[in-house]
């Protein structure tokens, strides 16, 4: 921060322009009290990675248990706590924050041509809130855990569960404020800090999708906050708003919960759309197809996703009118997603496609997200949902979107911008292998679950009927492959930090302001504030490529 006098002369400190943000201070203090969005992104990356492996460990145990019908772990209590832990950690401490707080935090100012986010101190505060919330939740999970599932349905969570529900809810409540702060910062920054010439339609799709995500974070999370507050009050003081015995309604909890948690699904997937929309043009050497359609698809997803939460409650005992209304609205939200898939294909059409690791992840994303999205049509059809909901079909469906889609996109983006973030290149061969193994392991894990679900195997079952064993063993085998694929990047990315080849400013030859500055960027991002004169993805046309190539 620099103080300037009223006449308006600005005295920007010279610090860090020569070196990069990584060399701008080596003390612990220079990291823990930084307001630099790039350093905060790295703080977040460390935290996210930790939570990912905690949640993944729980998932591994869940899959291990399901190898035998009677349950390998021997205790339903342990199992219930494990899948709750998996859900809570993965949803709130990995999937929701993953891309926005790491890649988003790092890239938004760079892509905008700005020096930082609008409120850098709020950004740091949001990291601390996230860590505090995470610590409280982990405390709850390790002090004995929670056995309600991540959905905390009442009255199980309020009157019958004997686990640390309030503590876990408190942790999630706190981390919610971190989400709100992040979303607010993103929206305001995108509105106010665009470089000269950076009009809305010159912004990369990634920014549009993070803008849409910001809307969801800012407007849905507060409802989760009040819901968790009421949940805790109900559990501790038995206030009765969710208790039918005195006239409350357990469905009210579900409405409030899904008002947040359905948009949260899009909080998880929208940044994935953004990442893929950057990677595909870069490795097809071609302008993105139907830019405005993609952009407005993101925005309309942000709006419509608030209208569809009731589709989680088709068999919950809501009114018929409510179910029918939410069903048709759910179909509406599928349209923009379909638009995006076809636009990515259109982008590859007549391109010069290269198969670097980020592109492999992006291709995996398209395939898996398409399957996830299509099965979404199944569960939006009311009568089909009655049969399929609350079974492994739904588990497979949202894992295809969350893990197949979102996690693929996260790894794609991480590899794509890794040279920018660290100034080092990752080992390409290893990365391609990891992407491929991840794709195979993922499908082996989750495809059998579609069949299990159709056959009627309910989710959250510690033990199951013997006829389901074959498919469960297949799924668990796939999970072990998937787990090793997740460990690979951890290894080679860390290795590349020390031994990786030095990256140039723009190793992919990609467009976008973030590639115009050094790798890694200086603290103030740009030596001179860039001036934007053309739209995004100004890759050469095929004709000129063919002339030169």
């Amino acid at each position: 921060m620099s103080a300037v006098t009223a006449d308006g002369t600005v005295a920007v400190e010279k610090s860090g322009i020569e070196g990069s943000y990584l060399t701008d201070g080596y003390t612990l203090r220079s990291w823990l009290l930084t307001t630099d969005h790039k350093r905060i992104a790295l703080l977040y990356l460390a935290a996210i990675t930790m939570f990912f492996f905690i949640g993944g460990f729980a998932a591994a145990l869940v899959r291990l248990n399901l190898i035998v019908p009677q349950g390998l772990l021997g205790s339903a209590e342990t199992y219930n706590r494990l899948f709750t832990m998996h859900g809570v950690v993965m949803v709130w401490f990995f999937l929701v924050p993953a891309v926005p707080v790491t890649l988003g935090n790092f890239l938004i100012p760079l892509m905008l041509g700005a020096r930082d986010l609008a409120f850098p101190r709020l950004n740091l505060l949001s990291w601390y809130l996230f860590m505090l919330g995470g610590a409280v939740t982990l405390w709850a999970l390790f002090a004995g855990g929670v056995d309600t599932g991540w959905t905390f349905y009442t009255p199980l969570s309020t009157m019958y569960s004997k686990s640390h529900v309030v503590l876990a809810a408190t942790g999630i409540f706190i981390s919610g404020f971190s989400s709100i702060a992040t979303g607010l910062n993103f929206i305001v920054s995108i509105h106010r800090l665009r470089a000269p010439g950076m009009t809305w339609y010159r912004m990369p799709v990634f920014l549009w999708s993070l803008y849409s995500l910001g809307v969801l974070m800012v407007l849905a999370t507060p409802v989760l906050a009040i819901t968790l507050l009421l949940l805790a009050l109900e559990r501790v003081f038995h206030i009765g708003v969710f208790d039918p015995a005195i006239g409350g309604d357990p469905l009210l909890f579900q409405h409030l919960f899904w008002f947040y948690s359905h948009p949260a699904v899009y909080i998880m997937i929208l940044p994935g759309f953004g990442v893929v929309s950057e990677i595909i043009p870069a490795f097809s050497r071609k302008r993105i197809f139907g830019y405005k359609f993609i952009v407005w698809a993101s925005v309309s997803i942000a709006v419509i996703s608030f209208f569809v939460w009731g589709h989680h409650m088709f068999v919950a005992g809501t009114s018929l009118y409510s179910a029918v209304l939410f069903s048709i609205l759910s179909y509406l939200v599928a349209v923009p997603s379909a638009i995006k898939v076809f636009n990515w294909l259109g982008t590859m059409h007549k391109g010069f496609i290269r198969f670097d690791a980020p592109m492999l992840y992006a291709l995996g994303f398209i395939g898996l997200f398409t399957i996830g999205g299509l099965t979404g049509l199944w569960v939006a059809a009311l009568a089909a949902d009655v049969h399929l909901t609350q079974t492994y079909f739904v588990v497979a469906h949202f894992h295809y979107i969350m893990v197949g889609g979102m996690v693929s996109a996260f790894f794609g983006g991480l590899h794509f911008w890794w040279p920018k973030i660290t100034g080092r290149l990752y080992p390409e061969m290893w990365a391609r292998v990891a992407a491929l193994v991840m794709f195979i392991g993922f499908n082996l894990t989750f495809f059998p679950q579609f069949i299990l679900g159709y056959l009627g195997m309910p989710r959250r079952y510690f033990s199951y009927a013997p006829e389901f064993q074959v498919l469960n063993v297949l799924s668990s085998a796939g999970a072990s492959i998937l787990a090793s694929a997740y460990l690979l990047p951890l290894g080679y990315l860390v290795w590349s930090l020390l031994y990786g080849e030095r990256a140039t400013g723009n190793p992919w030859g990609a467009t976008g302001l973030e590639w115009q500055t050094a790798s890694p960027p200086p603290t103030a991002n740009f030596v001179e504030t860039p001036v934007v004169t053309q739209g995004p993805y100004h890759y050469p046309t095929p004709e000129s490529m063919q002339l030169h190539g």
Partner: protein
Amino acid sequence: MRRDLNRLLIVWLLLLILGAAEVAASYLPLPRAWRPLVMLPGAMMVGVVALGFMEVRRGSVLVRAFAVAGIFWLLVLLVLGSVDPLTRTNYPVPDAQLR
């Protein structure tokens, strides 16, 4: 300054009048389902505060957009959230069974 003061005082008087109207309306013998209409003057008071004290109109387009977004999504929550209870009939089980 004086013009500002006059404007603010008018806003304040308007708020007090609307508040009084709201109290008066609450004594109208409306049927139970219609009683939430008593809130109409209250909704107007919100508008008056937003325009008079919070200076929405002086603010940028962005400020207005944020204000509208807040109201719009509130309505989404309340309207779509009410569809279920207002069109549902609960068939309660007597207390005895709940023990």
